[in-house]
């Protein structure tokens, strides 16, 4: 009984972890601008992230080493600096975007400007990261995140996509001047979904929960069902953008506009549900991002770490949490709209994706860490395919961002 409870919690967590400011921004804009023409990008990134999450979960359960620890120990300090620095840059922007998402959600509910809500959002995230035990961090935002199912309900309530819209699934309607936009959103979707912070966090979480060889089934179920359900929410948002916003010529360039997709079928309750969902997903993501970076640094340098310890018992780890939040607040205070910041963050993640994912190829085949459970040939082919996609996305992301004016 307890095992099944643990599995459902894992799924709920992964569902919440899939959606964040980045995936909401890309899904909404994709639907509003190109109908169902970018659904393939969501599907491809979902498959990739399911595979990567399963692999890193398996790795950590068997070797008792987190991703960051394994990178330093196996590939040396010099190589470790590359994913470390790229993570710090990319996640600073992403954390600011998530905090912005929380702030926007709070402003949509209260009517108070999001600039004022921004520091409040940072404080809320800080309090959770500072004192809450890992269980709470895992489960609280995730339970609220179940609200994403309302997106799926909304699609049904609106009668689903028209036949004409469905045809854009395999034949996207892209005008000549919009090609850069289209490709840019595809790259940003991949970056927003296959976010390395998710892998660092998941791996550290597996250690916090003391996973072992017995947890392999739990790991597979969490990866597949969790990421699968999460992507349902993302896909639903694409559909909603296509059904509601596209005919109205609304391009979903602000997060508030996205809420209109739930206001149409459900009225004011719908908009409120959207705001709450935005709050829950961005809050969960903010926690994951700040902890992922702190885990990465503390583990890479061999310091004491852990959310189940008091802050003074893992002082340097917690100091990094504080400093990183301050950096994100500083970036947020520049005042860039959170949705635009989320797109920028996703682009930067896409740029560094090959560096962050490269270690998979080496670690997943190391029998010193995995014993007999190293990757089979299919799994290795999958990693190579993902790496090829990552390289392509990395090369085109910045040129496309410039050409398309940042979405």
């Amino acid at each position, binding site marked *: 009984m307890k095992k099944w409870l643990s599995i459902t919690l894992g799924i709920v967590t992964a569902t919440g972890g899939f959606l964040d400011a980045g995936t909401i921004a890309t899904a909404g804009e994709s639907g509003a601008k190109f109908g169902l023409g970018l659904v393939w990008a969501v599907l491809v990134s979902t498959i990739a992230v399911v595979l990567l999450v399963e692999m890193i979960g398996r790795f950590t359960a068997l070797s008792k080493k987190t991703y960051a620890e394994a990178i330093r*120990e196996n590939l040396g300090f010099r190589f470790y600096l590359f994913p470390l620095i790229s993570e710090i840059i990319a996640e600073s922007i992403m954390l600011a975007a998530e905090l912005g998402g929380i702030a926007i959600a709070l402003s949509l509910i209260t009517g108070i400007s999001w600039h004022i809500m921004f520091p409040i959002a940072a404080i809320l995230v800080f309090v959770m990261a500072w*004192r809450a035990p890992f269980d709470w961090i895992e489960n609280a935002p995730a339970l609220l995140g179940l609200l994403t199912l309302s997106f799926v309900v909304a699609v049904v309530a609106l009668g689903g996509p028209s036949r004409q819209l469905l045809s854009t699934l395999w034949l996207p309607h892209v005008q000549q001047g919009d090609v850069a936009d289209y490709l840019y959103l595809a790259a940003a979707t991949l970056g927003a979904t296959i976010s390395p912070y998710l892998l660092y966090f998941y791996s550290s979480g597996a250690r916090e929960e003391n996973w072992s060889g017995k947890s392999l089934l739990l790991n597979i179920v969490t990866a597949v069902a969790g990421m699968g359900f999460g992507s349902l929410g993302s896909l639903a948002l694409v559909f909603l953008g296509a059904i509601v916003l596209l005919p109205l010529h609304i391009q979903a360039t602000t997060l508030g506009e996205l809420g209109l997709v739930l206001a149409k079928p459900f009225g004011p309750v719908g908009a409120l549900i959207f705001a709450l969902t935005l709050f829950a997903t961005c809050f969960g993501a903010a926690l994951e991002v700040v902890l992922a970076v702190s885990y990465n640094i503390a583990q890479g340098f061999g310091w*004491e770490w852990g959310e189940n310890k008091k802050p003074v018992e893992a002082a340097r780890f917690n100091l990094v949490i504080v400093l990183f939040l301050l950096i994100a607040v500083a970036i947020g205070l520049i005042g860039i709209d959170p949705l635009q910041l989320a797109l920028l963050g996703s682009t930067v993640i896409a740029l560094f994706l090959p560096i962050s994912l490269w270690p998979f190829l080496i670690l997943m085949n190391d029998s010193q860490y995995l014993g007999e459970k190293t990757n089979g040939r299919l799994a290795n082919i999958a990693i190579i395919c993902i790496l090829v996609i990552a390289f392509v996305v990395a090369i085109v992301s910045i040129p496309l961002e410039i050409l398309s004016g940042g979405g």
Partner: protein
Amino acid sequence: MPREKDDIFSIRDIIDSQLVTSDGRRIGRVADIEVEWRDDGSLVLTSLVIGPQALVRRTARPIAMIARFLLRNRFEHTIPISDVTQFGPTLQLRRAAADYDVGQADRWIARYILRWIPGSGY
């Protein structure tokens, strides 16, 4: 998989490995090693070196002088190899955390920075 005493192992089992004390505390990672040339012709590993300067010396030699100027050897420590009971990605040490100078930065930060934030548990 931790290695036993007489196994032959590579530098990978030592450099960058996590140091864990007998009471289960993580105190850092191995930055470098010290070896000694004995009279009988053998090269013997004598101690582990931990500290930012050692790390910089090993990985970014050109800025080693700047590191020395800024840090003034204040964070460098050595641990004799005899203190290691188990080799591998994690090095198990013989003594408790309080017996080592390494890892005291945590205590300093707790005492002078974190204590002012409510809920730190100081």
